[in-house]
C-alpha cells in the first residue's frame, strides 16, 4: 500500500499532470490556430471587442445573468465551481504536493474555509446530479459524460474531506487517500478530452463565436467550383 501510494503521489501524479497540461495546451493551441486562420481569411477584420470583452466577463462573474433563467440551478452551479477551483489549488496539503511535483508553492486558504468550500461543492455537486437526472430537458440532451463527471469530481472531495476531518484507522486512511489521489489523477487525464475542456476554452467562446461570423470574401465562387454548380440557378 505504501509503495502504491508513493507511486500515485509521485510518478503517476507527475504523469497525469503532464497529460493534463499538454492536453490543455494542445486544445488551446488548436483553438488559437483555428482563430488565426479564420482571422486571416476573414473579409472583414473588425471585431466587436467591447461586446466580446463585456460578455466574456459576464460569464466569468455571472452575477447579472444568474437570475435570468434557472436561478436556483445557476447559483448551485456557481457555488459548485467556486469550490471546485479553489480547494484543489489553494488547500494547504495540496500546495505541499504541488511543491514536491513542480518545485514551488503558493498562498493557502485557511482550513476552515477550505472545509466550507468542500462541503458546499459536495452538496452542490449532488444537487446538480439530481437536477440533471430529474429534469426532463437536461436528461434529454445529456450524454454519458454529463452524468459521470459530477460523480467523478465529487470522489476526491468526499474522500479528501473524510481523510482531513475524521479519525480513521491507518489502513482506511491510506485506502481513502489512494482513492482520493487516483480519482484526481483520472480527472487530470480525462479533463482535456472531455467537456471539462471548457475550463480553458470558455474564455475564448465569445471571441470565437463573433469571429465565426466574419466570413471570408468570395466564397460563392469557390464553393460553386468545388460542388460543380457554376452557372446553376439559385
Amino acid at each position, binding site marked *: 500500500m505504501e509503495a502504491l501510494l508513493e507511486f500515485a503521489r509521485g510518478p503517476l501524479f507527475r504523469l497525469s499532470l503532464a497529460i493534463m497540461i499538454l492536453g490543455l495546451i494542445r*486544445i488551446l493551441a*488548436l*483553438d488559437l490556430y*483555428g*482563430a488565426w*486562420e*479564420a482571422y486571416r*481569411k*476573414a*473579409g*472583414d*477584420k*473588425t471585431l*466587436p471587442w467591447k*461586446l466580446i470583452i463585456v*460578455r*466574456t466577463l459576464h*460569464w466569468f462573474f455571472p452575477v447579472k445573468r444568474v437570475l*435570468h*433563467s*434557472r436561478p436556483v*440551478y*445557476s447559483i448551485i*452551479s456557481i457555488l459548485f465551481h467556486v469550490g471546485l477551483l479553489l480547494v484543489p489549488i489553494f488547500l494547504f496539503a495540496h500546495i505541499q504536493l504541488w511543491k514536491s511535483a513542480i518545485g514551488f508553492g503558493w498562498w493557502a486558504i485557511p482550513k476552515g474555509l477550505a472545509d466550507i468550500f468542500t462541503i458546499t461543492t459536495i452538496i452542490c455537486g449532488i444537487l446538480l446530479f439530481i437536477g440533471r437526472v430529474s*429534469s426532463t*430537458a*437536461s436528461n*434529454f*440532451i*445529456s*450524454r454519458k459524460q*454529463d452524468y459521470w463527471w459530477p460523480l467523478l469530481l465529487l470522489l476526491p472531495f468526499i474522500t479528501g474531506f473524510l481523510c482531513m476531518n475524521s479519525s480513521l484507522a491507518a489502513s482506511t486512511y491510506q485506502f481513502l487517500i489512494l482513492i482520493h489521489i487516483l480519482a484526481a489523477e483520472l480527472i487530470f487525464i480525462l479533463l482535456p478530452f472531455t*467537456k471539462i*475542456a*471548457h475550463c480553458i*476554452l*470558455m474564455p475564448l*467562446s*465569445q471571441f*470565437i*463565436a463573433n*469571429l*465565426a*461570423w*466574419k*466570413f*471570408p*470574401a*468570395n*466564397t*460563392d465562387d*469557390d*464553393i*460553386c467550383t*468545388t*460542388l460543380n*454548380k457554376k452557372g*446553376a*440557378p*439559385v
Partner: protein
Amino acid sequence: MRTSKITEEERQKAFTSMRKPEVNKKQNLEVLYHIEDFDINDRPRCFLEAFAAILKHSNYRMALDHFIRLSAKCSRCATTCQVYQATGDLKDIPCYRSELLLSVYRRHFTLGGMLRGKIAGTGHLTDEKIQEMAQSFYNCTACRRCVNECPSGIDHGLITHLGRYILSEIGITPRALVVSTREQLEGTSGNTSAVPVPALLDTLEFLSEDMLEEKGVNIKFPIDIENSDYVFFPAVSDFLMEAETLMGIAAVFTATGDKWTTGTGYFDGINYGLFYSDRILERVVKKIDAETKRLNGKNVLIGECGHASRSAKMFLPAYCGGDKAFPVINIMEYTYKVWKEGRLKLDPNIVTEKVAYHDPCNIARTKWIVNQPREILKAFCKNYVEMTPSGEDNICCGGGGGTVSLDEIRSYRTTVGGKLKADQIRKSGCKILVAPCANCKKQLKELVEDQKIDCQVVGLHDLIYKAIIFDESLKVKLDAIENASQEEK
C-alpha cells in the same frame, strides 16, 4: 442539378415528419415547409460533400471544433427558447438542435469521431437525420436569444445558419425563400417582390402627391441622384405594404435637407441569404455595393428592416472590401442623429395612445440599435410603455429566420412561434406597437389578428410621419396646392 419533378413516393417521404403525430398536432404543423424539389437519392453523401466544401472555404470549422470540445449541456438555453417554451417538445431545445449538426461534424469531420464511428460502425449520417435537421432548423426563428443565455458561449444561431446553408446546397430550402431570391438575382425585376421600376416610380410619385395634400410640403423620393450622402435600400415589400414608413423616412429627409436617393438599378434591402445560404448572402450584398458604386453614394442606408440591416452591416465589409467598404447605417440611426442635432422636430401632442417598442432581433441582440428608437419615442409619445424582457434579451416576433415569408405555416407562427410575444403584447396593454422591421411587422400584424389582440402594428417612421413638424419655409402655399390639383383635374 435535378430537372425532373420528384415522384409521389419521394414527396411523401419529404413531407413525413420525424416527430410524433401528437407533437405535429400540437404545433399546428399541417404543412411542412422544406419543400424545394430535391433528389432523394444519396442525400447523405450529397450533404457530406456540401458540408466538406463549405468547411473548406469558410471559417465554420474553427467554431465547430470549439463548440464540440466545450459544450456542457447545461440546458439553460431550454428556458430561453420561445419555441421550446411554446411547444414543450424536447426536440426544440436549442442545444439538441445544434447537436444534430455537431454530431455529424464530429462523426465525419474529426479524426476521433471517424475512428470511433468506423470501429463501432455507428453514428453515420442517414436520410432520417437529414430530414430531422431540415425540420428542426426551420422550426427555429433564428432569434439567437439562446446565444445570450449560454454560459459556454455556444452560438446556436450560427449552427442553425450553417445547417440551413448545407441543406440548401442539397436542395432543401423553403420554396418561398428560393422563389423570391431567384427573382432578386435572376429575374427581370431584380428584387424579391418583383416590383418593376415603372411601378416603383408611380408608387413614389403617388406617395409624394399624398404627402403634399396631407402635410402641405413637397416631400419627394429622389431617384438616381448621383453623389448622394445616402443610397437607400428598404425591404422592397415596404413599397407595397408599408407606404407610411417610407413616407416618414422621406419626411425626415425633407425636414433635414440631407441628400439621399433610391437607385433604379437596385432598390431592395432584403437578403434571404442570411436565412439560408452564404452564397446568396454574398450575391445580394454585392448588388447593394454595385448600386451604391454606380450612384457614387457615400453611405448605404437600410430602411426599417432588421435582417436587411444586419446582413448589410455585417457582410458588406466581409464581401466588398473590408474597411474600404461603404459604411452601412440603419434609418433609425440616421433619424436619431438628426433628432439629437435638433434638425428634426416632433409634436408631442399627436400620438396619445399607449405605445410600446418591439426590438427586432437582428438589430437588438448585439445591442446595436436598442436605445436610439426608444429615446425618440419617449420624446414624442406621452404614453410609452416598455415590454419586458426587451433590448438584447427581447422576445422574437415569432417569424424570424425567414419563416415569416412562409404563408403556409402562418398558424404555426401565430400560435407557437409568436405565443410568448403575443402574451407580452397583451400584458403591456399597448394600443400601438412599433416594430421597425418588415419581417416583424408582417408577423406581428398576423399575430395580433389571429390572437385577437386590440393593437396596431406600425413602423417607427409611421409615427414620426404623423408627428413631424416642418419648418414654415418648407410649406407650399395652399393656393399653389389647390391650383395644382385643379390643373390636374
